[in-house]
C-alpha cells in the first residue's frame, strides 16, 4: 500500500531565497511525525507547498500514491487532508459551534442539501462531541473572537478534525497554550490518532511537546532535512544541536 504522504525533492524559492531546498520524506498511516528547526528554516513553507497554499517551484507531493502537486486546498481537503496554520485562524464572528460546523459542512451532502437540508448539515452531534472533547462546552455559544487565545488555539485545532481527515498537518499547535491545556491537547491528539488511525505531521518549537507526542522527528535547517529519527536520537544529534546553537 502507498504511503499516506510522499514528498519528493520539493523546492520552493522566493526570489533568490530557497526557503525549501530539496526536501524528501514519506509518512506512513498512523504515524505522528514531528518537524522541528530554527525560525525561518522553511517548515511553514513546506506545509504551504504540500497543501496548495503555495505552488512549489519543483518537486512532487503524493497523497495515498496520487500526485496532488498544484491542487487547490479545498480539493485536497476533500481527499481527507486537513491543516492548521501557524497564526490563529478561526472565524471570529461565528460561534464556537458554528466554527466547527463550518469546518466540516462541505464534507456532508450536496450543494442542494446544504441549502434546503438541515441547518447544521447533520453535523450538530459531531460538533457537540468535539466541543466536549476539547473542553469548550462552557463557551460553545460564544463568538470565537471573544475566547481567550488558548481557547481559540484549541478551537483552531478542533476545526481541523471536523471533516474526519486521514492526514492532519498542524503548524505550531502548542504556541501560546498553557501547560495544563498543552497536556490536554497532547492527549486529544493521541486519542484521535489511536481511535481513527489519523496520521499527523506536527511543526512545533516546544521540544517537550514534540518529543513526548511524536513517533519520529525530522529536523529542518535552511530548507533541508539535516537529521531524522526517534525523538531520543534526534535530541542527541550533534548536527541538530549545532543548527540550533550555531557553530
Amino acid at each position, binding site marked *: 500500500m502507498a504511503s499516506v504522504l510522499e514528498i519528493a525533492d520539493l523546492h520552493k524559492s522566493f526570489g533568490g531565497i530557497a526557503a525549501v531546498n530539496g526536501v524528501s520524506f514519506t509518512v506512513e498511516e498512523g504515524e505522528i511525525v514531528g518537524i522541528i528547526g530554527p525560525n525561518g528554516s522553511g517548515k511553514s513553507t513546506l506545509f504551504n507547498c504540500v*497543501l496548495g*497554499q503555495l505552488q512549489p517551484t519543483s518537486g512532487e507531493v503524493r497523497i495515498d500514491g496520487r500526485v496532488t502537486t498544484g491542487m*487547490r*486546498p*479545498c480539493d485536497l*481537503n*476533500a481527499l481527507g487532508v*486537513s*491543516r492548521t*496554520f501557524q497564526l490563529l*485562524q*478561526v*472565524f*471570529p*464572528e*461565528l460561534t464556537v459551534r*458554528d466554527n466547527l*460546523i*463550518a*469546518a*466540516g*459542512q*462541505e*464534507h*456532508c451532502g450536496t450543494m442542494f442539501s*446544504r*441549502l*434546503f*437540508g438541515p*441547518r*447544521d*448539515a447533520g453535523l450538530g452531534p459531531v460538533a457537540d462531541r468535539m466541543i466536549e472533547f476539547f473542553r469548550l462546552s462552557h463557551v460553545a455559544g460564544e463568538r470565537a473572537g471573544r475566547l481567550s487565545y488558548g481557547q481559540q488555539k484549541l478551537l483552531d485545532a478542533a*476545526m481541523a478534525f*471536523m*471533516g474526519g481527515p486521514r492526514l492532519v498537518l498542524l503548524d505550531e499547535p502548542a504556541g501560546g497554550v498553557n501547560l495544563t491545556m498543552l497536556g490536554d491537547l497532547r492527549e486529544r491528539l493521541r486519542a484521535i490518532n489511536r481511535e481513527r488511525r489519523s496520521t499527523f505531521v506536527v511543526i512545533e518549537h516546544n521540544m517537550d511537546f514534540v518529543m513526548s507526542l511524536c513517533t519520529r522527528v525530522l529536523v529542518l535547517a535552511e530548507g533541508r532535512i539535516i537529521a531524522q529519527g526517534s525523538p531520543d536520537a534526534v535530541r542527541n544529534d550533534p548536527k541538530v544541536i549545532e543548527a540550533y546553537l550555531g557553530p
Partner: protein
Amino acid sequence: MASAGLVRGTLAAVTVVVLAAGPEFLRPSQLYLVSLWAVTAIAAMGLNLTLGYAGQISMAQGAFVGIGAYTVALLMQAGLGFFPAFLAAGVLCFAVGWLLGYPALRVQHHYLAFVTLAFTTLVYLLLRNEQWLTNGVYGISGIQRPTALGFAFGTAARFYYFCLGIMALFLGAMWWMIRSPWGRAFMVLRENPVRALSLGVDTRRYTLLAFAIGSAVGGFAGGLFAPLVQFLEPNSFSLGYSLSLLLMVIVGGAGYLFGPLVGAAVAILLPDFLRFTEGYYLLLYAAAVMVLMAFCPQGLIGLSERWQANRRARLAAGGER
C-alpha cells in the same frame, strides 16, 4: 424584565400591523413611498448578501436594479406577462452577476470597488446610448402593473400590498439561506477565506454565488421598480443610486438580516417625516451617517445590539437592582 426577544417581537408585530393597515390612513403619495421602500429594501437585501454576509464590496447593485427594471419594461412591451418578465429579470441578473464575480476572485476591497464601479458606469452608458433598445434619455413610459389570477394590482393600495408581499417573500428566503450551510459558507468567506478554503469550502464557487444571488435579488427589485414608477429613465440608475444602496446597507447594519430594511427606511421614509427641516434633511443625514460610522461601523442594528449587550451586562453586574 422584558427580554430583548420580546421587545423585538413586539416591534415586529406592530410594524406588520401598521403596514397592513397602511391604506386606511396613508395618503396615496405615502403609499407610493412605502412601496418604494419595500422595493428598495429588496435591492439592499441583495447587496447585503454580497457585501454584508460574503464580504465582497460591490458598487454595482443599482446597475442590477436598472437591468432588472429595463428587462421587465421591455419584455412587457414585447407582450410578455409581468410574471415571466419578472422571472427573466432575476435570471438575467443572476448570469450577469456571476460574470461580475470573476474579478472578485482576483482582487479585493478598493480594487473590487473600482471594478464594480466601472461596471455601473458601463450599464448606465448602455441604457443611455443604446436608443434602439432603451429609448435612451427619453425613457420608457406606460409600464403596466401586474395582474395575478384575474386580480389586478393597478391601484396604489393594491400595488402597495403586492410590493410588501414580495418583500416579505424575499426576506423569508434570505432568512432561510443565511441560516443554511450556504449562509455559513458566505460568512466564512468574509471572515477568513484562506482558512475556509483549507477546510474544503470552495471559496471560488461561493464568491460567484454571492455575486450572482445578490445581483439576481437586485434584478427582482428592479422588476418591481418598473411597474411601481411606471416610467424608466437611465438617470435613475447612475452611480449615485448604487452608492446610496451601499450606504443603506451600511447605515442599516451590514450582515444583519433586518439591516437593509432599516437602512432603506432611513433613506426613503425618513425624509418624508422630516420634511419640516426642508433643505436641511440631506445635511442632517450626512452628518448622522458620519457620526454613526465613526462610533458604530456595524450600523443601526449593530448599535441596538450593542445597547442590549450593555444593558444585559449592567443588569448582570447590578444583581437585583
